[in-house]
């Protein structure tokens, strides 16, 4: 700590240059905070611990292909199956395509398999008894200011009605909540009654999009999954069954490898940052050669001088990076407050901070390495003589 003022004052020897450098570091880590928030949201969606005892069965060829409802009884009869439900992607648009949210037709018992989604008994009963009933997540309902009893029209993009109409109108009879703050993004979906959907749709009747099985014991998951798939082996509707966790991970990967995309962007940003701040540090040390020589003259060792320059470099990056990350936190919170949990962004929490701090220190060391080496190796008599 006793060297802090020495390091600090050296850093701000050229205030304008340092402020501009700090701004570029700030911008890089602001971007990192935002992108890592998105990446973390996708990663957590794919790795939620909820759902390890649920299996998802989809068509082996593509999860967009439907499966016959006749598989239901076969799966139900398998040992280790505790509960079974099914659903179908609807893909309807509410008012404007920009208002995207997941909407699915689900079987009557769908919510029995999702105890982490809180829905009152009265709302469950209303969902059961209302043919056109729909249940929305709290975040979604808040976003569109929906209240129980509201009529929600969706424009079909895949499933027109038998009547030729393209607008499906649902009655909002329930709003579910997810208590785990890390899974709040699950509150941005709308579910409606399967029976209404299946009877009214123009095609595909009797088929389901996917089955969801809850196993009686999570250790049986693999065994049950194999048994489910065995039911349709060599048929025209072979299935692929996996845990919901694995299914989510595979589904998220449909968007592309978010981690790779974020990594590639941040790699380019940090590479530029290293060149920029590396040049700044090199210039700063070059200007201070006589001062560094004085430090060595009065007894600072080579290692001390090396440490001072490296510390200055790390401090520069950590200072700019920390401000950038604080700003990223503010922006993420503002976006989440404005657009709800539908936005795939996690809060800028401890894990993002830890990753960022690790990067800051690493970049600081890389940026400072060459100037610090030069400072360490300078010969006092040459430096004092201006050679």
């Amino acid at each position, binding site marked *: 700590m006793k060297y802090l003022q020495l390091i600090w*004052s050296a850093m701000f020897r050229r205030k304008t240059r340092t402020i501009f450098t700090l701004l570029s570091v700030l911008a890089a880590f602001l971007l990192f905070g935002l992108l890592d928030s998105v990446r973390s949201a996708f990663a957590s969606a794919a790795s939620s611990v909820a759902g390890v005892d649920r299996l998802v069965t989809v068509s082996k060829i593509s999860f967009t292909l439907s499966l016959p409802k006749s598989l239901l009884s076969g799966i139900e009869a398998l040992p280790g199956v505790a509960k079974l439900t099914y659903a179908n992607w609807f893909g309807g648009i509410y008012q404007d395509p920009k208002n995207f949210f997941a909407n699915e037709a689900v079987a009557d018992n769908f919510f029995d398999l999702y105890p982490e989604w809180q829905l009152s008994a009265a709302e469950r009963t209303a969902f059961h008894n209302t043919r056109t009933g729909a249940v929305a997540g709290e975040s979604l309902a808040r976003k569109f200011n929906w209240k129980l009893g509201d009529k929600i029209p969706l424009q079909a993009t895949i499933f027109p009605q038998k009547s030729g109409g393209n607008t499906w109108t649902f009655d909002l009879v329930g709003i579910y909540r997810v208590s785990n703050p890390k899974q709040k993004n699950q509150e941005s979906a709308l579910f409606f009654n399967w029976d209404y959907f299946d009877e009214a749709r123009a095609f595909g009747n009797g088929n389901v999009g996917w089955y969801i099985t809850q196993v009686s014991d999570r250790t049986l998951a693999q065994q049950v999954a194999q048994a489910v798939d065995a039911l349709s082996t060599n048929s025209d509707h072979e299935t692929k069954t996996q845990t919901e966790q694995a299914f989510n991970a595979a589904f998220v990967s449909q968007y592309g490898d978010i981690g790779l995309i974020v990594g590639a962007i941040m790699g380019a940003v940090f590479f530029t940052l290293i060149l920029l701040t590396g040049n700044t540090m090199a210039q700063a040390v070059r200007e201070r050669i006589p001062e560094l020589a004085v430090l060595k003259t009065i*007894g600072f060792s080579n290692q*001390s001088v090396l440490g001072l320059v490296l510390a200055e470099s790390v401090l520069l990056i950590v200072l700019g990076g920390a401000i950038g990350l604080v700003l990223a936190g503010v922006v993420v919170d503002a976006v989440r407050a404005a657009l709800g949990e539908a936005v795939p962004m996690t809060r800028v929490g401890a894990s993002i901070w830890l990753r960022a701090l690790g990067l800051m220190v690493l970049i600081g060391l890389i940026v400072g390495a060459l100037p610090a080496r030069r400072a360490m190796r300078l010969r006092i*008599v040459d430096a004092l003589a201006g050679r």
Partner: protein
Amino acid sequence: MSALVEVQNLSKIYQRGKQKIEVLHHVQLAIEQGDFMALMGPSGSGKTTLLNLIGGLDSPTDGSITIGGKRIDRLSEGALAKWRASNVGFVFQFYNLLPMLSARKNVELPLLLTHLSAAQRKRNAAVALELVALADRAAHKPSELSGGQQQRVAIARAIVSDPTLLVCDEPTGDLDRQSGAEVLTLLQQLNRDHGKTIIMVTHDPKAAEFAKHTLHLDKGSLVEQSEPSRP
């Protein structure tokens, strides 16, 4: 008095490209503890090189340098840095203060290498600044001080860790006559009242008059040792 500085058969050869330049040639020298020695000679005579070698800033090509009974020419770079921190104070022609630090913080710099507490460092720096009559300018940055004042801050920095030996390279070379005289008087006072052994390189015979003895170097060899100028 015993010899604080003993230089024996000292040679220094610089390699400049393919050319070898012998800057010092078998120099023999002894400086008593408590002496104030002026080192004079024309440009390129090797004065600063000799001063740098005695101050432990450079290593000789040949010969030995013993200071306070210690062979400093045999010390490693790290050990030499430690030795400098506690045994030598340096004063340069252009003061070489750190421009972004206040006078007090500049004076405190050598104390950062000690185990003194922050409060104690501050106290010691204040005492050193008092000694050079700049206590009232402690908070000022070098750019806010005159040349003479900056050199006095540099002297305070040189003495703050209480070294036995002060090496001064043209300490008045960048000062007007009056400021130069003040600095030389201060050095004289440090020598007389505080027992500091001082070796001062200078071009200026008037400045050399403030020393007790004067040595002359020419082409890397000592040519003459004067009688004490001021007993």
